[in-house]
Structure formats: structure tokens, C-alpha cells
């Protein structure tokens, strides 16, 4: 029983980070109807961003996070103007191909620069031990930061003019234009925000596990599952969806081989798509 509780608690902690990773994907998807297939590559660049800030410049791991957020935002805005801006409003395949191409460029560049060798950022924090099970300090801090960022995002979207503009454009771009909102700039900012969220989730993941340039694919897949669970364009739902996914993983593992985890996750993905196409945690839009 204790083992199950420990597994569930651990799952929830990691799930919060999955949720943060998915927030960027769902924000972009919800605001501009673009499925960002470069999401995994951006998560990895967040990991490498932290590695070089921490290893090369000696910046303490968590202190580097604001820097990665800023760099991620700037990179996201640049990516928007280079690869996404012209395909918005076109056939959906165009945006898929465009972001897929960005993904291939980023992975290719990353492989050329860093090879596919694993990298590790040694972060050591005291954890909590209970009945022989340890909840590592890094997991607890990562989950806390993920929740804090989710809270800040909520405040940004619901309590600021910029956030209101983003939600207006997401709701009806034409109407937003008519109201004088510079929609192209808002879309660029939203994309930048989505990329920043993906990058910061990469930095948190890098404090938990070693990584390679190819590590992003697994988190991108989880992000899709979480996005469907939480509802498209629903960042709060994404956080809850991530926690729910972590909860499911934690509950399953004591009872079945871990190799079945992805089978169950994707079965859940299909069930939710069929039964709850707006997501389990979808809130009605005001």
C-alpha cells in the first residue's frame, strides 16, 4: 500500500512537469490552430540551454531558468516570423510541414553540434524519505516551479491586457482585428510564449534526468496525450492533464510491467478523443 502511495505521489510530481511541457503546445494550438511539431526539439534546446548556462557559465541550475524563459520567448518570436507566420490560415498540412521542417533543422543542427551523446546536469537537493521511499528534492522543486509557472501564465492570460488580447485572437481573429488588436504581433507573442514554456519545461526535465539531443520525442508524445486530456488551447487543463497522466502512470506501475505504460497511455488518448473530444478538463470559454 505504501509502495502504491509512493508511486502515485512520484507520478504526480513528474506529471506536473509533463503538464508544463504540454502547456506550450496547447497554447499555440489553441491560439493559432498550429500543431507545433518542433515542440520536442524546443524542449531539448531548453535542456541544452540549462546545460551550457550551468556548465559553461557556472550559473546555478534554477537561477538559469529566467534566462531560458527570455531566450525561449525571443527564439519563439523569431521562429514564428520565419516559419509559421505565412502558413497561418492556410491548409493545416502546411503548418504541420513547416513546424516539422523546423524540427528536422533543429535536431540536425543539434546533432552536428552536440552529437547524440548523453549529457547530465548534476543537481543535488535533499529529498523527503518516507517508509523507505524517497521523493527527490529535484522532483519536488520541479513540480513546484511548474505549478508556479502555470499560475503565472493564468494570471498573464486573465489579468493583463496582453493576455486578454491573446484570448481575443484565439476566440475570433477577425473580430479582434476590428477591435484594433494587432493580431500578427499577438500571434507572434503567443508563439513566443508557447516556445518559452516548452524550453523551461526542458530545463526542469534536465534537472531530473540525463538527456540527449533525441530526448524530446518522448516528451512531445506525452505532450500530445496531455493536450488531449486537458483540452485544446487550455493551459490550466494541460497542467491538470499532466498531473492526471502522472497519476495514471503511478497507479499502473505497481500492478503491471512498466513496458505497458505507453500502451495504457495511448489507449487513454484514444478513449478521451472519442468520448471527450474537448478534453476531460475543458472549461467552457467565456
Amino acid at each position: 500500500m505504501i509502495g502504491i502511495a509512493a508511486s502515485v505521489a512520484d507520478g504526480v510530481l513528474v506529471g506536473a512537469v509533463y503538464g508544463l511541457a504540454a502547456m506550450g503546445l496547447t497554447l499555440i494550438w489553441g491560439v493559432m490552430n498550429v500543431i507545433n511539431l518542433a515542440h520536442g526539439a524546443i524542449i531539448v534546446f531548453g535542456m541544452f540551454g540549462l546545460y551550457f548556462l550551468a556548465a559553461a557559465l557556472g550559473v546555478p541550475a534554477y537561477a538559469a531558468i529566467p534566462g531560458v524563459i527570455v531566450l525561449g520567448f525571443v527564439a519563439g518570436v523569431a521562429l514564428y516570423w520565419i516559419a509559421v507566420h505565412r502558413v497561418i490560415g492556410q491548409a493545416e498540412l502546411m503548418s504541420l510541414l513547416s513546424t516539422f521542417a523546423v524540427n528536422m533543422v533543429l535536431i540536425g543542427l543539434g546533432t552536428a553540434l552536440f552529437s547524440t551523446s548523453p549529457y547530465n546536469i548534476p543537481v543535488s537537493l535533499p529529498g523527503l524519505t518516507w517508509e523507505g521511499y524517497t521523493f527527490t528534492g529535484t522532483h519536488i522543486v520541479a513540480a513546484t516551479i511548474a505549478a508556479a509557472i502555470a499560475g503565472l501564465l493564468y494570471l498573464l492570460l486573465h489579468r493583463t491586457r496582453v493576455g486578454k488580447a491573446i484570448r481575443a485572437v484565439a476566440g475570433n481573429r477577425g473580430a479582434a482585428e476590428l477591435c484594433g488588436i494587432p493580431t500578427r504581433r499577438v500571434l507572434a507573442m503567443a508563439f513566443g510564449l508557447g516556445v518559452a514554456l516548452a524550453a523551461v519545461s526542458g530545463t526542469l526535465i534536465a534537472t531530473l534526468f540525463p538527456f540527449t539531443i533525441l530526448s524530446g520525442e518522448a516528451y512531445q508524445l506525452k505532450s500530445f496525450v496531455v493536450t488531449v486530456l486537458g483540452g485544446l488551447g487550455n493551459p490550466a487543463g494541460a497542467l491538470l492533464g499532466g498531473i492526471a497522466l502522472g497519476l495514471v502512470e503511478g497507479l499502473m506501475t505497481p500492478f503491471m510491467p512498466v513496458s505497458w505504460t505507453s500502451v495504457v497511455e495511448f489507449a487513454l488518448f484514444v478513449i478521451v478523443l472519442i468520448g471527450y473530444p474537448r478534453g476531460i478538463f475543458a472549461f467552457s470559454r467565456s
Partner: protein
Amino acid sequence: MKMNRLCLVALAAMFAAAPAVAADETLTIGFTVSQTGSLNNDSVAQMRGFELWRDEVNANGGINAGGARYKVTFVSYDDESQNMRVQQLYTRIIVQDKAQFLFSPYSSGLVATAAIISEQYGKIMLTTSSAEQKTYKLGNKNLFQVYSPADQYLAGALLALKERDARAKIAFVYKDDPFSKAVAQATRDLAKADEMLLALDESYSPATTDFGPIINKVISAQATALLGGGHYADGATIARQLHDQKAGLKWVTLLVAPDTPKFAELDDAAVGISVPSQWEPQVTYKPDFGPTAAAFTKRFNARFGIEPGYHAAGGYAAGLLLQHAIEQAGSIDPVKVVDVLNQVDVTTMFGRTRFSTNATEHGLQLGHQMVLAQWQKKNGALVKEVIWPNEAKTADILY
């Protein structure tokens, strides 16, 4: 007439002035390398072993076969750690590039694919990094395994663990890939035969990134020892998370990952982790030909700036063995070279090599013995010591 004589004189002058035609011929060896993909780290190490051997043999005038000297050239491509690419590229290497001999790609999975192609075309292939035995039990005639097979990998760890604690509760946690599963199967059989306690027996998907849930299962099973892993990325993550989660295991043996110098980046998480190794720089084999392990290590370090692991050593040994076979055969005729390889029973810097000539398992490595190495802290620095077998050890076991 005058013009004709002039031409003849000019022609004679050309031949007189031209340098003597080079006596060297070229021997082409083909292989793929995982320059990209998940197997990159270890595959490149293997390739460096090949390259060092090639450069040394060419610097000494090439391979001497029956009086003719052959300069070794390589033709290699990036297999992207993918079976499909291995299939395409080995066909190209044989048919288009006309390689006369082959080295294998890295990993049991990729070698199994390459072996199908090499056997189809009747090409000799020396395999390094292929421990899975199944590949050699399909009726091949031209495959030769340099590494010890999979059933040897954890045999030493089990013996060493049994000596320490015959009642140890073992958790088998291994990657779901051909190599790791082959090792796990053989080890499971050995453990059962030795009546050792199995507390947990579980595989994980190669895509697994978080081993927290499995480690919680290990703790729940009250295991005192863990054997398994797969390759570098997952092995390094398991080691780190075992340390972070204070799993409290007395014995951890992981495949492949801890043998790489990069494993030391895990710092405290690496301490006590042991690894079955095909070779370590400290071994003191007396070679019948080629350099000693110490000399090879020095040359490799001078060339690449890092200490070689067993992947590099295996690559170098493959080159040595092929060279030896060609020189003994006095020819590059594959039939004669195969005959020599079938009779080989030699010691190199890599250890003893002898291949099975039984038709049902041709080429399986019979002579080579593995060692067990462990990361230990000495004067504050992480070093890898050989802890088993007793006759080869450089330090006592940390338990």
C-alpha cells in the same frame, strides 16, 4: 620520321622520369557507424578502434599477404542507429563499393541485420559489439564474433555477488532490446541454477525516460541487488535515479553504460556501480601479436585524448585479427582467410580469441573471458577498477 623519333624519345623520357609504380594494393573494409541516433556514443568509440588499427597498419606498410602489401582503406556510412539503414548500406558497401571484408555495425540488433546481408553475399564479417548468440546460430559460414556472447555478460557479476551474499535478493531490470533480453535470459537461467533469489524481473521500453516507477518497485520488492540496464542513456539514468531515490542497494551491475568514461560525470551516483566488461585498460594479457593493452591504451589516448573503453578495444582487436588471418593465409582470398579464422586460437591485447566451427553456431566466440569493473573513489577521484575475476582484479569489491 624525325617527328616519330622525337615522339619515341619523349615517351621514353616520360617513363624514365615517372616514379616507380606503387607496389601497394588496396584492401577495402566496409562497415557502418551510428554517427547519429541513440547508439552514437558507443558506435563512434568502436570506429575509433578500427581507425587506430588502420592507421598503424598503413604506417607499417600495409598488410603483408603472400608478398603483396595491401594498404587498408575503409568505406563507411552513418546507419543512424536504424536497422533499415544497415540493410541498405551493407548492400551498397558490398555491391557498389566492392568492399572485400566487413566489420560490423554497433549493437546486437544492427549486427543481426548486417549479418543477413553479409551472409547473402558470402562476405567475411568480424563482429564487434554483437553479444546476442542467436545471430550465430542461423547457419552462417563467414561470421566471426570478437566479443564474449551475451550469456557471459552477467555470469561474473552473479558469481561475485554469490560469493558476497548467496541470499541476496536480485532485481532484474533490463531494456527491451535484443542484446539486453539475451543477457537477461541467460542470467536468469544461471541465477535459477544457482538457487539465487529473484525479487523482481522486469523489462522497460527503450523509450523510457523516467525510471522512478521501476525503482519504487525495486524498493517495494526489498531487493538488495540490481542487475540489468541496456545501453548508455538508460543505464546512466537508472544509476542517477537509484542514487537520488536512495534505493539502498548493496550491489548494482549495469550493462554497457558504466564502461564509458563519460559515466564518471554522474559523480557520486557512479560510485559502486559495476559493469561487465569485454576489456579494461588494466588487463595484462600477453599478446601473441600486436601491442599489449597498456601500449594500445597509450596510443589511443595520444590519438583521441581519452582512455579507450572496451568498444574501442574491440574495434582495434577486430582489425588485428583480420590482419593476422590474411597474413597467415598469405592471401586475401576469402576461402583461405576463413580457413585461418576457423583455426585461430590466439591472444591479443583484447584477450584470447577462438571461434566455434560447429555448423550450428559458427563464429561464436569461445575463448574470450569478460571481467567485472566497478567505479570507486580513490583520493577523491572516480576510477574504474577491475574487481573480478580474482586473477585479474586491481581492487577489492565495494559492497
